[in-house]
Every structure is written in structure tokens, then in C-alpha cells.
């Protein structure tokens, strides 16, 4: 019953978030601040992880291809497919659930504990619109970071090839161009948009409705990470089946 209650509350929160919008001049500032905190602030970690995981995918694929009949360009092909289809949109989103999600839950949760949300409500401000809506808008730029992640993942694979001597640069480049389907990129971006909404709203829900003190803020951050990751993984399965399934 608690799960159903929470799911209902989550959807009510989303509906309430769009009611009584905050003044645009104030909202604009909040959106830019959240773009800085959530998107720009995450670029470094996304770039670092993407580059090295791209390299690892390349090494693992190259090491597991020991049949001389399998062409060497398959290393580049496998790296591109893994990075575009799964690593960049899904794996990065789970990492972001930890980084951005915990930040959102703890910042909103602290505002709840210190009565800052009550202060907004008493002033007649729609606190959900004020706090959550700018995060949703800011995270709509999340696909751009994923595009950077895709590029750096493939670049990391190329670097591993060249410097590790697993395959030639020419083979790798042939591989990343082989059987390229634009729809796979569209599929990845559709997933990313939906994950971005989840990344903004589930941590906000856990922060906004938390009760208690500082200890509970920590607990809420952990719970929010777990549920965001679960929902991302479930949605990943559903969307993959819907968009790529038979």
C-alpha cells in the first residue's frame, strides 16, 4: 500500500509542479543555476568515465576476438554499438542518479528540514514549481552531455586501439562506420530524455516529502538513488522492447 501511495503522490507532485508558475524573471535565474549545478557540473565526470569505459569496451572486445575469421574492424563496431545503445544513455544515467540525484535530494531535503520550503509556502509560492520545475528544464539539456559521452566513449576506444595495439586505427574507423543506423542514435536520445525527467523528479520527490532531520536527509538520498536506478533500468527495458524489439 505504501508503494501505491508513493506512486500516487509522485504523480500528484508532477501535476502540482506545473500549477501556478513562478515569475519568469526569477525562474530564468533558477534554470541557469540548475544548468550550472546539474549539467555543467557533471561534464567532467561524464567525460572521464565515458573515455575510459570506451577504452575498456574496446580492449575487452579485442581480447575476446581470437578467431582469425572475424574481421578486426568488429572491435570498432562493437564499441560504437555498446557506447551509443547502452553505455552512454543507461550506464551514465545510473551514475548520474548517484551524483545529480543525491545532490537534488539532499539540497531539497535540507530545505525541508530547515523550514525553507515552509517559508516558500507561507509566502504563497508554489514550492514544487519553484524547486522542481527548473531542475526538469535544466536536465532537458542532459542529452547534450550524453552526446559528448558518446563521442568521448568512441574516442576512448580509438585511443585504446592505437596505444594498446589491439587493432589498427584504420580498422577501428571502418568499424565505427559499418552498418551505422541513425535510428539507434534517436533511440538513445529518446531514452535519455525520459531518463532526464526521472533523474529530476524522483530525487526531488524523495527530498520534498522527507520527514525528520539530518540523518533522514542521508537516508532519503540513498533511497532516492536506489529508486532512480530501479526506474531507469525498468524503463530501459520497456523502451528497448518498444523501440527495438520485434
Amino acid at each position: 500500500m505504501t508503494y501505491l501511495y508513493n506512486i500516487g503522490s509522485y504523480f500528484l507532485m508532477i501535476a502540482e509542479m506545473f500549477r501556478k508558475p513562478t515569475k519568469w524573471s526569477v525562474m530564468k535565474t533558477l534554470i541557469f543555476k540548475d544548468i550550472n549545478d546539474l549539467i555543467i557540473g557533471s561534464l567532467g565526470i561524464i567525460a572521464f568515465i565515458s573515455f575510459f569505459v570506451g577504452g575498456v569496451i574496446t580492449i575487452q572486445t579485442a581480447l575476446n576476438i581470437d578467431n582469425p575469421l572475424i574481421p578486426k574492424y568488429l572491435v570498432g563496431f562493437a564499441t560504437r554499438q555498446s557506447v551509443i545503445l547502452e553505455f552512454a544513455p543507461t550506464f551514465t544515467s545510473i551514475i548520474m542518479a548517484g551524483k545529480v540525484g543525491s545532490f537534488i535530494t539532499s539540497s531539497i531535503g535540507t530545505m525541508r528540514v530547515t523550514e525553507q520550503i515552509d517559508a516558500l509556502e507561507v509566502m504563497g509560492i508554489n514550492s514544487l514549481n519553484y524547486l522542481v520545475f527548473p531542475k526538469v528544464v535544466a536536465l532537458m539539456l542532459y542529452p547534450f552531455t550524453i552526446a559528448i559521452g558518446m563521442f568521448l566513449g568512441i574516442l576512448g576506444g580509438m585511443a585504446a586501439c592505437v596505444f594498446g595495439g589491439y587493432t589498427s586505427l584504420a580498422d577501428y574507423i571502418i568499424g565505427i562506420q559499418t552498418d551505422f543506423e541513425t535510428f539507434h542514435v534517436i533511440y538513445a536520445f529518446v531514452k535519455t530524455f525520459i531518463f532526464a525527467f526521472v533523474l529530476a523528479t524522483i530525487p526531488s520527490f524523495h527530498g520534498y516529502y522527507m520527514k525528520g532531520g539530518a540523518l533522514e536527509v542521508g537516508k532519503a538520498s540513498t533511497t532516492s538513488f536506489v529508486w532512480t536506478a530501479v526506474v531507469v533500468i525498468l524503463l530501459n527495458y520497456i523502451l528497448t522492447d518498444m523501440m527495438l524489439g520485434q
Partner: protein
Amino acid sequence: MIEVKKLHKSFSGVEVLKGISTSFEKGKTNLIIGQSGSGKTVFLKCLLGLFDYEKGTIAYDGQIFSQLTEDQKRNLRAKIGMVFQGSALFDSMTIAENVMFPLRMFTKQSKSEMEDRVDFVLKRVNLDNAHNKMPSEASGGMQKRVAIARAIVNNPKYLFCDEPNSGLDPKTAIVIDNLIQEITDEYQITTVINSHDMNSVMEIGEKIVFLKNGLKAWEGSKETIFKTDNEVVTDFVYSSNLFKKVRKMYIEENQ
């Protein structure tokens, strides 16, 4: 003026407010006092609309709160100033930005007009040079004064204060009390203060509502509280020897 009639509020079947009726007058400092757990904070949160209640009415100058639409409630709340127990300053903003916040949200003033108003209210609460400090850099007393400045910056009709003196030294507590009373007189605000600080009661209690176990046990002023024979009130207010002596002296002087 705020009028409360037969207010009932329960949590999980436990009745916390058991039919409170009272009124808070314009231009006066109205105090809600009582022991911890008597229902003061719940009562204040019901007045502010932060808690829904089961029965009864709360009327702000004749407007019954529960009968207002969401938009009307938000418009009414724009006329309310609130000083929270922990100040509740926005920790991502400077002191000046905190005070300017209600103006940015609810007025169409230019930046220079807002800055002038912020300067004026910060001066009013004796904080001339704290504009660019962050709340975390301010002392408890300064934070309370910033919270008062933020509460009054948009000329509210109603001012609510939850334990404005908690965590403050006696001297700063008196400064805060006097400031609230002066502002109430000056702007003719309906001020409601939730407190269990007996100094505040004696200093600024123009109207006092005493709660016990979710009921209004007594109502009066700082003058009548000295004379009352109500045992529930005297047990609470004059529980310390110092206040017993103060009361005795007051009665002797006024006989």
C-alpha cells in the same frame, strides 16, 4: 484581525487541537503560550495554512481561509510575513537577496527600488552592513533580524513568529521582542507570536492565549496575567521563584 472558531486538528486519530476559539487583534502583539506539546506549533501552522484542520474556521479580516480557492489562498499568503524558529533563511542567497526575495516574487518594482527598500528594512532591524554576508556567516541574533526584515519587506498585514527568541541570549532576545513590538505598532500589523519565553510574555504580551492539552485554558494580557487566579496559568507562568517574586511585587505595588 484573525478570528478562530472551534478549531479541531488531529494526527492519526489523536486530537491535538480540541476546539480552540479566539481572536488576534490588529496592531497588537498576540502571544500564544503553553507547555511543550500543548499544541502551539500545530495551532500556528493551522493559522498559516500549512496544516489542514478537520473542523472550525479561521477568518483573516472576514475571509474564511478554508473557503478560499488555491489562488486566493496564495494571494492571502503574499500578505503574510513569517519568522520561523530556525529563521529559515535561504542558504544559497546573501542576506540582501533573502530580504529582496518577496519583492522579486510579488512586486513589479525596478531593481533600484527593491534595493532601496531592502536598505530601508535592513536599517530598520539594525543591520546596515550585512548585505553581502551569507546566512551561515551571521550570528543567531542577526539571522533572526534578517528573518524579521524578510517578513516585513513587502508590508504584510499579518506577521507570525514561531519562538522568535529560541537560542538567543537574554539581551538579544529583548532586542528582538522590542523590534517585533515596534514594527507591529508602526505598521499596524496583526502579529501572532508563538512563545514559551516568559520575558516576552511580560514585555510584549498585549494579548495572551494560553493553551493546555489542545484547549484554550486562559486568555488575557500582560497586565491581567499578574492578577489571574487560574491555577493552570500560574503553575506554568510562575513556575520559577523569580517570577513568583515578580508577581508578588507587582500585586503589592498595585494594591
